[in-house]
């Protein structure tokens, strides 16, 4: 099923972070799935042929990924049903899916080709929306780029690629470089080119040009550029960033990280000169986070806490995704100013793990919380169980129509390869 309706409820967690626990955003048929539908038998054949061709053409080839079969059920509010022009009562909506995620790396002489893509088959069980037995097949290319390494100090990459710049855990001011489709969990790269200048193991400067909007509109003013510099002085990182698009984005930023005992402190701050396209109205964006890791012989834990100040949000200025720009010039497509994010991950031996995370709107008190438990059955196969829930009054961000489910459960089997 491919419901073209885009509702605010499908916005990803900030900074493309997946739903708590590093799992994808719920993919219920009621969470409209607008993955590109250029899916055909060709996509399936491509998935099968890539590894075979690679072994012949590349000097070295590596594939890693997973095959996941998943059953989900969401308990949705009547508000959402009404939005969908359907019967207005709370209801449970189940579906099932099979997803193949794969990253291929073809190693050639002084170059590397990377293809990261997903193929998903969904069989929703919503009788009044789809024909019983109907399935949808969707193929999505997250990254596909050629990395050239002509000199030890120079990398050039061409194609769809993702650059994980910045210091924060949930978002970076440089995320504006990437498209942020409303319904995806944020792995999609930008279409363009990047150049990395390496000044040894502790210093690098990167430049990038994103062309996805300009290619769509045919307007060179929609070209977006960014720069990022990072330097390590012993264990302290210092960095600077800049994102630019004519009359739309002018965003200088700084960042840093420093270990203090067992805790890593990170922070990033930027000023967006444009409040809205063409209007100069400087607004700050910043995040400050702490990470703590602890490992014993039997278990280990990772704790992350982050505060986010989203100066781009303003009741008067915040707009849902516009057709012209893929990310509304934001990089942080949430509507309030202050948020808190937390993530607690625990791994016990080699048998099971659990994670709990959430995003809290500090202004209206609403929250989006997720929990997961994964059990390692045998080598390479995980059984998982998870659920996400929302809290808050009906007029809040996470309690309102933007997040229409009260509770969303998932069970899955994942085979890693």
């Amino acid at each position, binding site marked *: 099923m491919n419901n073209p309706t885009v509702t605010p409820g499908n916005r990803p967690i900030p900074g493309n972070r997946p739903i708590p626990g590093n799992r994808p955003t719920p993919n219920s048929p009621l969470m409209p799935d607008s993955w590109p539908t250029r899916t055909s038998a060709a996509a399936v054949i491509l998935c099968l042929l890539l590894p075979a061709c690679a072994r012949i053409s590349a000097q070295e080839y590596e594939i890693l990924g997973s095959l996941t079969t998943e059953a989900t059920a969401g308990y949705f509010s009547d508000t959402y049903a009404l939005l969908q022009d359907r019967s207005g009562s709370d209801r449970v909506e189940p579906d099932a899916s099979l997803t193949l995620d794969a990253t291929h790396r073809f190693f050639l002489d002084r170059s590397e080709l990377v293809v990261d893509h997903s193929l998903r088959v969904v069989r929703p069980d919503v009788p009044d929306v789809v024909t019983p037995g109907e399935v949808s097949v969707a193929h999505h290319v997250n990254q596909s780029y050629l990395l050239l390494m002509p000199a030890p100090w120079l990398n050039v990459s061409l194609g769809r690629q993702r650059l994980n710049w910045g210091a924060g855990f949930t978002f970076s001011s440089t995320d504006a470089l990437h498209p942020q489709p409303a319904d995806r969990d944020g792995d999609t790269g930008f279409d363009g080119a990047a150049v990395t200048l390496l000044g040894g193991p502790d210093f690098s400067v990167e430049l990038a040009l994103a062309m996805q909007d300009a290619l769509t509109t045919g307007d060179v003013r929609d070209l977006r550029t960014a720069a990022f510099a990072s330097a390590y002085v012993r264990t302290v990182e210092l960095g600077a960033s800049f994102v630019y698009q004519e009359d739309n984005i002018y965003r200088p930023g700084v960042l840093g990280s420093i270990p203090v005992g067992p805790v890593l402190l990170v922070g990033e701050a930027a000023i967006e000169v444009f409040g809205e396209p063409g209007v100069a109205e400087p607004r700050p964006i910043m995040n400050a986070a702490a990470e703590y890791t602890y490992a014993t012989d039997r278990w280990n834990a990772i704790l992350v806490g982050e505060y986010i100040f989203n100066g781009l949000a303003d009741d008067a200025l915040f707009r849902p995704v516009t057709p012209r720009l893929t990310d509304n010039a934001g990089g942080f497509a949430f509507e309030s100013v202050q948020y808190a994010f937390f993530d607690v991950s625990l791994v016990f031996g*080699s048998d099971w793990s659990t994670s709990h995370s959430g995003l809290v709107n500090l202004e209206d008190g609403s929250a989006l919380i997720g929990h997961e438990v994964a059990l390692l059955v045998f080598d390479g196969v995980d059984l998982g169980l998870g659920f996400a829930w929302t809290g808050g009054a009906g007029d809040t961000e996470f309690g309102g129509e933007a997040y229409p489910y009260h509770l969303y459960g998932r069970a899955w089997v994942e085979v890693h390869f």
Partner: protein
Amino acid sequence: MILRTGWVFVLVATAIVAGAQTQPDPQSVLDQIEERLFPESFTATMRMYTDKPGQRPTEMVLDSSHREGAGTFMVVQAPSRSRGMRFLQKEDDLWMYNPRSGSRRAIRLSPRDSFQGSVFSNNDAGDPDYSDDYTAELIGRERLAHPELGSVDCWVVEATARHERATYGRIVMYATVEDLMPLFMEYYAKSGLLFKRMYLFELKQIAGAIRPTVWRMESLEQVGAYTLVTIEALEARDDLPERLFNQAQLTR
């Protein structure tokens, strides 16, 4: 009488000089122990098997690249669940990035914590150098029973932490007098508690020298727990690119 006293003096002086000649410089011994374990810069494939009482044994295969002064970069090849996971040792920290997790940042791991549930610490896995963190002293000469070499004469070297950031308070190393081959090590916490010991076996010609290729690290805190590292491949390399050790490249 004067003549006899003179002879005694000469004999004693000769013994002192001879002793001084045969007792090597401790820091040089530590350097040579390092060289016996790994070349200065290298690539290696290692298999790490961990068995702990009450837990399912685990096995991990790692490709490791180390460049002197730049760091260590490791990629997990097995098990499939962890394949592709990358580690970068910089200064005293080990950074971990899992491309499967969807995370945008690498996680910083404490050097003293357990490496992936093994008996080895993160620093043991990522930093093959001792001499930058420890000051060596020769504290004795003992015979050690080794399964391949039999009873063998060893220098006992005590490596004491130079600074607070060092993983261990001290390490006592046993290396053969003949060729400074490390055979046995004891690891002490900063409190002085002996809590790990490592045996080195399977001496083989690899990467231009005879080296121990099997390391068994035992925990004394968790009785019966051990990790066995087998070096399956090792090659001295002086052409490893710096990009491999650049932290900004770790998350690509």
